[in-house]
């Protein structure tokens, strides 16, 4: 059973295209995240959603738009792709602890995006 899954695993596309990455978790968690890992392996949070509500929105170009249809899904749509968007994108999920933040985040397998 896959806890946090992402599709696709690899995505190769041309500059200017629009693409989406899907994420699903079956852990019953109420918080989901998107991270970007660049070529130097540096990980940075992009967004987080708690119960379908946007909680964290770091400095990310507005070409990136997350959408959470329900607690188990958080998709990432990217418009007008640029070369600098090439990276590995990880989805993660966790359960929130009232007044205490969140518990351990569990990561998906990643989506390697290559923009040509």
């Amino acid at each position: 059973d896959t806890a946090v899954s992402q599709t696709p695993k690899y995505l190769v596309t041309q500059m200017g295209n629009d693409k989406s990455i899907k994420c699903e978790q079956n852990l019953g968690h109420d918080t989901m995240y998107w991270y970007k890992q660049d070529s130097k392996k540096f990980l940075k949070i992009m967004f987080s959603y708690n119960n379908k509500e946007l909680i964290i929105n770091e400095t990310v170009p507005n070409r990136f738009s997350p959408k959470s249809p329900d607690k188990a899904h958080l998709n990432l749509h990217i418009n007008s792709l640029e070369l600098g968007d090439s990276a590995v994108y990880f989805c993660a999920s966790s359960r929130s602890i009232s007044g205490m933040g969140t518990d351990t985040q569990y990561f998906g397998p990643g989506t390697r995006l290559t923009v040509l």
Partner: protein
Amino acid sequence: ELKVEQNPLFLSMQEGKNYTIYCNYSTTSDRLYWYRQDPGKSLESLFVLLSNGAVKQEGRLMASLDTKARLSTLHITAAVHDLSATYFCAVETNRGSQGNLIFGKGTKLSVKP
């Protein structure tokens, strides 16, 4: 703004040796995580440290947290090749922040026979 620094960033060690990876952070936090990432793979949670003086051990890895010094260590005992991976520490910005983790740059560990 919370900053998280790991050192060393690269570590080459021989099997059987001991070593420590350090994680310093710049502002108060009560929650620190260690993750492992194998090449081309996802991140695997190793430890979560919640309070000052916390120590956790799993196999050859032991993690500790000193919140007063804003320092966590990941100690490797009698390294084996299977421990080769990149290790990240991550710090939650503040209580109730809903999981805003700031990651260190990672320590790439290579264990040679």
